């Protein structure tokens, strides 16, 4: 009798949180597996099918995504939640403003050149 291969599993213990919209999804599987993602309120779509054991996902908008993993025999891993909450746009814009001021001051100092000599 053949031993039944163990079902694939995600390597992350609990849900993954991301404030950048990207994350590396890793799993263990004894053969090829199929990774799929279900965006909030939308049907699941396949991301990858093959023998790699990792997939780099990026560019996700805010929301909670459900990742599923299935091997060739149809065995499924417990689904993984990926929660994306981007950082505050307000904070980002303040930093852009501060950066712009410091940069323009530097440019001005260089282009103005030597003074009082």
């Amino acid at each position, binding site marked *: 009798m053949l031993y039944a291969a163990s079902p694939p599993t995600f390597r992350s213990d609990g849900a993954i949180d991301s404030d950048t*919209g990207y994350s590396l999804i890793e799993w263990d599987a004894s053969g090829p597996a199929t990774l799929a993602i279900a965006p909030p309120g939308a049907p699941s779509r396949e991301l990858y099918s093959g023998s*790699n054991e990792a997939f*780099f996902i990026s560019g996700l908008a805010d929301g909670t995504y459900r990742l599923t993993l299935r091997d060739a025999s149809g065995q499924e891993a417990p689904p993984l939640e990926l929660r994306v909450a*981007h950082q505050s746009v307000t*904070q980002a814009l303040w930093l852009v403003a501060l950066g712009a001021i*410091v940069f323009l001051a*530097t440019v001005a100092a260089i282009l103005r050149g030597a*003074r009082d000599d």
Partner: protein
Amino acid sequence: MTKTQALLDPTLGWVLLAAFSVLWVGLGIYWGRRNKNFEDHALAGRNIGLALGSATAAATWITSNTTMLAPQFALQLGIWGMLAYSTASFGLLLFAPMAGRIRSLMPNGYTSGDFFRLRYGRVAWGIFLVFTLFYSLTWLVSMAMAGGILLNALSGISYAWGMSVILGVCVLYTMRGGLAAVIGTDFIQSMIILAGIVIVGIAVLSQVPVAEIHANLTAERPALLDVLFPAAIMAIFNNLLFGLGEVFHNNVWWSRAFAFRKGVAGKAFALGGLIWFPVPIAAGFIALASGALNVPVPASDMVGPLVVATVLGKAGAIGIFVIVFCSLASSIDSLLAATSDLLTEDVYRRMIKPAATPDRLKTVAQWVTLGLGVFTWAVCLPRIGTLATVLFFAGPLVGAMIWPIVTGLYWRSATTTGAIGGMLLGAAAGLACYFLIGWYTGALVATAVSMVWVVACARFSAARFDWAKLKESS
């Protein structure tokens, strides 16, 4: 760790590695024969022309980070990520007017350390040396490690061998040929890198039109196209200021300002910046095509090579191998040369043996280059992955040096108190924010705090610096 298949077989990898190693070392030995003394060795006789000058500015700034990290940045941070990366060219563009001034204020200067010592005194000089050595050595270590890792991923050559060969080759030709060898090879390397990027870009576009890439991103990775993608827009000015700090303080760039022929420095840095500007976009956009081309990416730092190998097959893999090798060599050699000159001039000559003859200094510089190579090799061998991330701590350190340097070159009222306080307060505030708020604030806060302190000190100072003090005779 997921095992990814190497793109080339190791035998072909070794053949390519051997061919380029022989070429660089041969040219280094050949060009090194013109060097009679320390000035020839360290500054190529202060006579570099426009073509070689522009090429070396661009090539040195194109590191393995530019050709490999740009696609990773694009995949993580999207269109803003590529544009944020391109802003690093402002470092070269803004250094252009400064280089001309450096050349005329310090006709006999050798290093950026000379400037700190003569302009702000020994305490500021000491702080500068600590900051710049931390930055230069971590940059060197991170590139040598990247070399081993990339050659391993591309061709299956083991990490230890790949890292040792690339470092050994660079040490050998830099030691023998000095700055002339570095700049000569930089010209060839920059032509190869730029041509390679153009060929790869056209090949990718022939497989998938931009409209399709855009449609795929809209459907699957919408944040990458978002104009208000928070993580990406926060990166813009932090990156920009990091780049400014890197270029303004480091002896890699100052030694070039001293080495370029009179009247060439400004033009060469400006052209170098213009040549560099599109590189992160042209090299990075291929990552955005990974979705439309159905290339699965098991590790974000391998996205560039994976897309290229999918589109161009074996030829593409060879191309990427050559581009990576050239990008690494063109930066490692410059950093070895400039750091060894800094240690020779600022530590050996100024602190240990002021009476050393020019001939003796050249020999010392060669041994220091070898020593740096051995040190880097020993640090890289255990392959401690976290070491490369230490480079990011340098952001606050280099950001804090921007204003002391700029005002030191242009304002007679800039003071030693301003420079020392600016460097220490800026670096401390930047590092604190880096750890308390996030990496995207490090260089930004450091530059801002340092700027306020330096400007305030200059405003309330009655002292006026005498520029003639910078013209120390050699």
